[in-house]
């Protein structure tokens, strides 16, 4: 039993009801543990109390406190609201926003214990992760995101007023369809900054008015008789920066028929997609980090006598349902619960650091028995994303515990095959398969702009590099291509090519823009 120090020996709260002084006391107590004892470095936080309706509101706009307007958010809201009203889904206990200060929404219905848990989870767990994880540091700018969203909202409202709802809606629809392919995966973008965005926008208008786009060239560049071979293509690709996998970026820069405001709208959607890109790659880690942090903090609060046994029981109840992982044949199963996986791996890391087995020493020679749990955790939180995190830290013991197995589903075969299970020969294969599952680059189709037919009908050529023979879903793809064509202004062709054999598998030929778009 740890000693109860005098300073912390008193309870923060006892009843289920919360009020502002209690929340503040709880926050301070958590902060003492998180920052002074655990050495976490979250952003400063701002805790905001909201009602369930406001929570629904926040749901429908990607969790952000302010967002531009679009019918699809209304659609999500309508569905979420109905599911919630009918009792089919509960609401999240909290929403946390990667901004500085870190906004942390807590719901008024929660009990004091839940508020404490939520603050430990969101403000310190997620807060630390947002601030320290390499991906977030690289790709997002927590300082200015709210300013930028404010700018985006006003800009789009402005466009609606000036160019009409329908016109703006059309661009946004198309941009949203391409959102998954509107992120830069490699180079670092300039951090968003409100002022510079505004200036840049004006500059673009000036530039557009005075510049010449190569796409409009009507004079032949070379002697038409000359053999149109690779050098030509190379030059073209060079000029247009091809191949380009960020479709929104390409359209923003090169689509010939877009008005400046339309380019700006594309940019807004693209930057928003970029902002969320790290979150999509770190779901397991982010939740695992927050869950481990709240678990450690709540346990510590209980050890030091700052919360009652009853409150601790309530916490454990909530915690276990958060990290519950049904098995595959359970009717409740709907994929792997990121909270459970993240928390499981981190807890297991703790064990490996403090009480390693022979097996652990073999698998994790660097960290087994180093007795530095927090240090190991912090390195993991900072340096990895889901895919590499799982690949690095999922231990044989956890795989055994979860009884993980990998199933190969080849549509050409008439049955699925169990490829590997949680045994000595299967650990690596299971782990690799699970990690691949979290690799967005593998998960999302690899689609690139490869060429533009400048001499002919200005057709845009896209290529999908097919991996594992998984082709695009037809109906959806045609719709997206139609959107793409609307933005491009001319027909679009998508060719699906097998990444290994370079063999053409499928082709969506010359999807033309809607005739209504002029």
């Amino acid at each position, binding site marked *: 039993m740890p000693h109860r120090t005098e300073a912390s020996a008193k309870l923060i709260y006892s009843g289920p009801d919360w009020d502002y002084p209690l929340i503040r006391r709880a926050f301070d107590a958590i902060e003492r543990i998180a920052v002074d004892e655990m050495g976490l470095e979250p952003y400063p936080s701002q805790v905001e*109390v909201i009602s369930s309706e406001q929570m629904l509101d926040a749901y429908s706009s990607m969790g952000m406190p302010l967002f531009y*307007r679009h019918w699809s*958010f209304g659609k999500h809201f309508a569905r979420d609201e109905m599911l919630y009203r009918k009792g089919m889904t509960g609401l999240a206990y909290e929403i946390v926003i990667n901004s500085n200060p870190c906004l942390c929404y807590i719901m008024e219905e929660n009990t004091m214990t839940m508020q404490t848990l939520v603050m430990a989870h969101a403000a310190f767990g997620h807060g630390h992760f947002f601030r320290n994880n390499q991906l977030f540091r690289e790709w997002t700018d927590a300082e200015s995101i709210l300013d930028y969203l404010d700018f985006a909202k006003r800009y789009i409202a402005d466009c609606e007023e000036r160019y009409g709802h329908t016109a703006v*809606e059309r661009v946004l629809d198309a941009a949203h369809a391409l959102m998954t392919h509107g992120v830069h995966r490699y180079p670092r973008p300039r951090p968003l900054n409100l002022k510079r965005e505004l200036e840049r926008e004006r500059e673009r208008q000036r530039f557009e008015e005075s510049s010449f786009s190569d796409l409009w060239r009507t004079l032949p560049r070379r002697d038409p008789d000359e053999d149109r071979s690779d050098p030509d293509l190379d030059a073209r690709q060079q000029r247009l920066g091809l191949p380009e996998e960020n479709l929104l970026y390409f359209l923003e820069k090169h689509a010939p028929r877009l008005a400046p405001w339309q380019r700006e709208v594309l940019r807004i959607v693209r930057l928003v997609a970029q902002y969320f890109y790290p979150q999509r790659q770190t779901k397991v880690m982010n939740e695992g980090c927050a869950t481990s942090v709240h678990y450690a903090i709540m346990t510590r609060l209980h050890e030091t006598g700052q919360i009652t046994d009853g409150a601790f029981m309530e916490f454990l109840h909530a915690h276990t349902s958060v990290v519950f992982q049904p098995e595959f044949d359970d009717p409740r199963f709907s994929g792997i619960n990121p909270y459970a996986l993240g928390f499981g791996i981190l807890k297991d890391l703790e064990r490996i650091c403090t009480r390693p087995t022979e097996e652990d020493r073999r698998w994790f020679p660097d960290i087994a028995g180093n007795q530095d749990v927090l240090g190991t955790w912090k390195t993991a939180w900072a340096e990895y994303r889901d895919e590499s995190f799982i690949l690095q830290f999922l231990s044989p013991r956890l795989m055994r515990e979860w009884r993980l197995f990998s199933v190969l*589903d080849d549509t050409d075969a*008439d049955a699925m095959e169990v490829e590997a299970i949680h045994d000595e020969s299967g650990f690596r294969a299971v782990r690799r398969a699970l990690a691949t599952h979290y690799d967005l680059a593998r998960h999302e189709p690899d*689609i690139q702009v490869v060429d533009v037919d400048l001499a002919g009908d200005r057709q845009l050529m896209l290529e999908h590099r097919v991996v594992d023979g*998984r082709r695009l*879903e037809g109906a959806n793809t045609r719709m997206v291509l139609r959107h793409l064509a609307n933005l491009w202004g001319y027909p679009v062709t998508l060719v699906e090519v097998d990444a290994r054999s370079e063999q053409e598998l499928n082709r969506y030929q010359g999807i033309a823009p809607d005739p209504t778009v002029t």
Partner: protein
Amino acid sequence: MVNIIDRRLNPKDKSLANRQRFIRRAKRQILDAVRDVSARRRISDVGQQGEESISIPSDGLQEPSFRKGSGTGVRRHVVPGNKEYQAGDRIARPDGGEGGSGPGGGSPDGEGEDEFQFSISRDEFLDLFFENLELPDLARTELSRVEQDGVRRAGYSVSGSPATLNLTRTMRRSLSRRLALHRPRREEILELDREIDRLERSGKDPERLRELVQERERLSRRSRLIPYIDPIDLRFNRFVPTPRPISQAVMFCLMDVSGSMTEDMKDLAKRFFMLLYLFLERRYRHVEIVFIRHTHIAQEVDEETFFYSRETGGTLVSPALDEMDRVVRERYPPDEWNIYAAQASDGDNTPQDNPAVIERMERTILPVCRYFAYIEVSGERGRGGLTDLWMVYERIARSGRPLAMRQVRRRGDIFPVFRDLFTPAELRN
């Protein structure tokens, strides 16, 4: 120092603008769904609940994105909870593809969205149902005021029957009067009696005894003079007779269901009945509906039968009026109910029946009705000419009875006709 902010008082409905955009976007589908719902539903249910759950096909509402299909290629699923599988085991693919409990169930890329279900509010529903015809305008149109004698409490009076005595008021006045006039209290007299009694027994201090006896007499005289309750204390509840609107209404729906009425015409009629119901429902606390269908015979039926069962036969209108009269006499005494009737027909009537119709209308039906609305539905290919029934009713209407009649051909006609029918005469000019 952490900031803790209460956002609960912030304006709600932050996503209202998004919702409006969504409804505008899905207008066509929602309209279809609303029509569908209103056709399936009973008249009295229309717009009754606070919320309306509708589901619409999702064409035009999808949010497509490039995603890999599930029909081709190789996938690997990693799932927990292995019980008996060994590497190399073969598992039959679960039927139904996505979303099951089998391995690979609930894969994130099988987002099937065929129908989209959500709720719209009553106002949105009505708005869409009447296709943005300005229903709120109805609030300004007034039907003739409907009144009945009743009584209403109106303060207190100094006279009245014992049954209306207001005890609280009376006792309050009695108490204040007794206090003001210093009526001796019972305890005081009892105390005095006990003192006298003690002195008499002890025989000491006869002087004091005499004083006390005198005092005792003074007090009892005083309490005799000042009564406990005096007629001037009495207060009675006062009632004044007031005319009071009858808060219940019954609506008779009469419809010709003979073969000449097509489904289209019935749909038009149904819409008219719905509107009338909504209108009445806003004005009266309680509205009942009676359905009477007729061919050459008439009977009261439930709504389902009224709209959907087929009947063959000739066309006679007077039996329907008789049936209505019978129902009124049995269940809806005109001094307790506001009676409205709406008749829909294609205008057919056997010529021999016309005198009977006139007679029934003038003698039994119209005198008890607040309003009798007749709409003649003629479908798209309306005959244009005047029908038998039209001419008959026109003759009745000329005598100034509360009978209104209009012709309706299309859905769009219904609302203007309705507004026309129910606009009071003084506003019409």
